[in-house]
């Protein structure tokens, strides 16, 4: 095995590209990120590791917009993310310039995934160590979408997905609790999924909501705290409801 994991361009005998798999490991170490698609909104959430006291937290934006109607969050190597996001932003404008149309979510996802794939098939380079969750609205039909890409360059559309640290637990939670929601309910679902793996509180979570009319809006810490409080109250109410019946019998 040690002989097949050095160069990216070498397959192992059992068909693995070890560098790509190691890149996926890097993603698994990155911060937890979640995306949920509603009927009229798409919500992105990401875990915010406690900021150092002397750090200016405004310069650490994890949810970025690629265009007026597309946003992205990633898990993994943040420096690699900067490069990918920059190329994607240029492509969004370039597309507008050449065909006078904004990109569709699928187009820009395909572009980013294509870039990630290119770096799994070249000499002397390593794959990008990040997976992305890309959300947006189709510029003409107004239909919301959520896509995911990974270091291998594969991509697919999702109703809800998670990536990064503990993504399996979040995905399990989403699979159990997903239903078609809209507006605030979608935001709550995303936060509930994140709270499964992240310490509760507004300063540990970053949430952004995208709507067709207003584009991307980052939620304030106070807003997140309020929703978290609502969720905790609902949880507590469900707990007491569960405990009550046994007492009656």
């Amino acid at each position, binding site marked *: 095995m040690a002989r097949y994991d050095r160069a990216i361009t070498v397959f192992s005998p059992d068909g693995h590209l070890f560098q790509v798999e190691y890149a996926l490991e890097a993603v698994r170490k990155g911060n937890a990120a979640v995306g949920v698609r509603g009927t009229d909104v798409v919500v992105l959430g990401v875990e915010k590791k406690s900021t150092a006291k002397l750090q200016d937290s405004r310069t650490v934006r994890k949810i970025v917009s690629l265009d007026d109607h597309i946003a992205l969050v990633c898990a993994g190597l943040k420096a690699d993310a900067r490069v990918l996001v920059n190329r994607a932003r*240029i492509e969004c*404008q*370039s597309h507008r*310039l050449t065909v006078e149309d904004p990109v569709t979510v699928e187009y820009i996802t395909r572009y980013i995934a294509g870039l990630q794939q290119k770096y799994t098939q070249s000499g002397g380079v390593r794959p990008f160590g990040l997976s992305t969750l890309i959300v947006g609205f189709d510029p003409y039909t107004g239909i919301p979408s959520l896509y995911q890409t990974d270091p291998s360059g594969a991509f697919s559309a999702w109703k809800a997905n998670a990536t990064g640290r503990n993504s399996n637990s979040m995905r399990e939670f989403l699979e159990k609790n997903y239903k078609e929601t809209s507006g605030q309910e979608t935001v709550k679902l995303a936060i509930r999924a994140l709270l499964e793996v992240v310490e509760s509180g507004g300063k540990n979570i970053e949430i952004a909501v995208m709507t067709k009319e207003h584009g991307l809006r980052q939620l304030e810490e106070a807003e997140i705290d309020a929703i978290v409080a609502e969720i905790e109250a609902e949880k507590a109410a469900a707990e007491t409801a569960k405990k009550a019946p046994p007492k009656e019998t």
Partner: protein
Amino acid sequence: MECVFGLVGNGFAIVAADTSAVHSILVHKSNEDKIMILDSHKLIAASGEPGDRVQFTEYIQKNVALYQFRNGIPLTAVAAANFTRGELATALRKNPYFVNILLAGYDKETGPSLYYIDYIATLHKVEKGAFGYGSYFSLSMMDRHFHSGMSVEEAIDLVDKCILEIRSRLVVAPPNFVIKIVDKDGAREYAWRESVKEAVAV
């Protein structure tokens, strides 16, 4: 010949451009909008070679948008003007663009501004400016009637005076003009001045 002119007033900048698309002796259309909304608070009024005009202004517009996505804040008017001039200058000695530009912008900190950028990459910050044969008439009218800090009504009155002068004194005067304004509330179309209606299929 293409007429573009503009001026700065009290808290706003206004630009006017003719709307004829001409090829030799044929007028293709008389409702061609030559004033592009660059971003929320900037206008580019451009005149010159039609292909270059569209190509160049769209290129500038997309690069200004890219800057905003990369940096989270929009370019200032002076920065956009210098960027535009830089692109013209770089292309000048290889593959020049034949486009003359009046860039009107509004910044929260510095207020309204107007920049004169000609096709050989001259850049001047001005209170009033004009391009084309029409400039002989509109600059003279503005020299006579312009004063600093005009109100929107006074400025529109002056623009109308310029248009009247161009219509009556220029041999191939364009029939229609579009006027756009930029102020603290953003860049938007203000009015059209039409003396020949473009025929529209019923």
